[in-house]
């Protein structure tokens, strides 16, 4: 069942003629995990901003076509209504923190108070959201003293507490160090697998996408130019390189070996798959 229906979407920013989105038509199924990849400047972030209504309501500009999220046409419904359906996580977790919460607990409470959720329920939701992102015990800490990975998990908790069905994450790992990436990636995976959320992840880290996504959309110059499973998309190395997407290293290895006539099977996506094939080909 489609939870998000986008048809014939065109968009240009205020004051600019040039269209950043050039005719996007795509449906996103409930419970799916969709990765969006593509080179810098392809329109990935712009596209994600159309899903929760920040485009056009907050940012303005000229939008045609339609975006319908769980039955709500984003043009006809305010951001406040849409934010109950769809939560967004940005690159920089500090930009997302309200700044008014002196503690982690207050930070998560902030959005709920604005929704008029009763006090008892607020406390329950905070506690559950912090457990879900592994920040239980951090209630009294200052959000600004947390590590980048912890801040990003807090940002996810603030959105989780609002209980939206859909999460859009726009390069949520970009500002994190490798361990921060690991800890946030595992939460992002759980959003989908454990909590059943529909997840849209804008990300060029193909290794993370190969682990979690069931569908990959490739964007280029404002359009969706490919749509398939991670295996279909990520094993087409020449196509990826032409579109500016960094291939997985083990896939690239198999591709180089195939050129030498040394690889005869499907390309691997994980090091375990690669290890098994290499054993068979070279060390049997």
């Amino acid at each position, binding site marked *: 069942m489609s939870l998000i229906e986008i048809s014939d979407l065109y968009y240009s920013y205020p004051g600019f003629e040039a269209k950043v989105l050039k005719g996007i038509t795509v449906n996103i199924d409930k419970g799916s995990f969709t990765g969006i990849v593509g*080179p810098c400047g392809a329109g990935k972030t712009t596209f994600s901003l159309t899903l929760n209504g920040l485009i056009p309501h907050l940012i303005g500009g000229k939008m045609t076509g339609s975006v319908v999220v769980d039955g709500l046409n984003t043009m006809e419904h305010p951001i406040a209504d849409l934010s109950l359906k769809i939560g967004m996580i940005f690159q920089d977790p500090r930009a997302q923190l309200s700044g008014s919460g002196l503690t982690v607990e207050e930070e998560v409470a902030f959005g709920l108070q604005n929704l008029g959720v009763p006090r008892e329920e607020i406390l329950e939701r905070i506690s559950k959201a912090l457990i879900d992102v592994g920040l239980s015990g951090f209630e009294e800490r200052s959000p600004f003293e947390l590590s980048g990975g912890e801040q990003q998990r807090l940002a996810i908790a603030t959105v989780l507490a609002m209980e939206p069905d859909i999460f859009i994450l726009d390069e949520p790992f970009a500002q994190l*160090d490798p361990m921060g990436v690991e800890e946030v990636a595992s939460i992002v995976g759980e959003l989908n697998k454990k909590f059943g959320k529909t997840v849209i992840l804008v990300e060029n880290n193909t290794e993370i996408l190969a682990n979690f996504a069931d569908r990959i959309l490739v964007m280029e110059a404002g359009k969706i130019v490919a749509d398939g499973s991670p295996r279909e998309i990520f094993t087409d190395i020449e196509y990826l390189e032409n579109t500016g997407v*960094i291939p997985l290293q083990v896939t690239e*290895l198999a591709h180089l070996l195939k050129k*030498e006539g040394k690889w005869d099977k499907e390309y691997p996506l994980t090091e375990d798959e690669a290890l098994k094939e290499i054993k068979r080909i070279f060390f049997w």
Partner: protein
Amino acid sequence: MDQIKNEKEEPIIKIRDLHFSYPSGYEALKGINLNIFKGEVLAIIGRNGAGKTTLVKHFNGLLKATSGEVLVNGLNAKEHAVSRLAKIVGYVFQNPADQIFSSNLWDEVAFGPKNLRFSKEEIDSNVENSLKMVGLLNKKDTHPYDLIFSERKLLCIASVLAMDPQVIIIDEPETGQDYWGIKKLIEIIKEYESIQRSIVLISHNLALVAECAERVIVMNDGKIVGDTFTPDILSNIEMLSKARLKPPQIIRLTLGLSKWNVPKELITVRKLAKYLSGL
């Protein structure tokens, strides 16, 4: 031959027992000893907050040692202005917005060498070469803010290259770069290395580090916890995990193949592919 070797052995940057505390009292560097030599590509890796950026800001005098010594080409960095040290050490910031202010790319890149009083001919040729090196010469009349983020980062690199420093520090250049951006970075680093300049690369992208750096230092909690050849560091899972880092996919694969005597030096896709093809 001896002379070349001696030159290589006299470090451009020499750091002895460097300690640094921020005004808040937080001790960010706890006794750093480090030599950086001419023509080497050195990567500094470590988790956020380990002290990487704090350390390199001592190389050009942006921060002054609380105790210990930083010598840059023999000059005590504490006693010389940033402008003096800028001729020797160029620093490309993490965030391009911190360093862009002109209305077109050419003027932006010309700003540094003009300030350092380079001749008109030198300025023109340095600006042209630098923009060419980062692949932005065809956009020289564009406004920097009309560039996409990844191009702005390359522009910042060009601005520093144009001052022709002996050491260039590039702080997390991979952020926001796509496949072409990363390829361009590798080309720039290799080209700069080939003209005997030193490069200090701070990066979380260990695949990029494996591709470019000969030597890696690992920082953790204000200290250097590893300093040796790149393959030795990147295949040392124990050391990496202490510093909260993880080897890239291809190195994990190479390590998985070690029981068939696949050498652990094969830390890039190309090297491993070449080795396996030769079997």
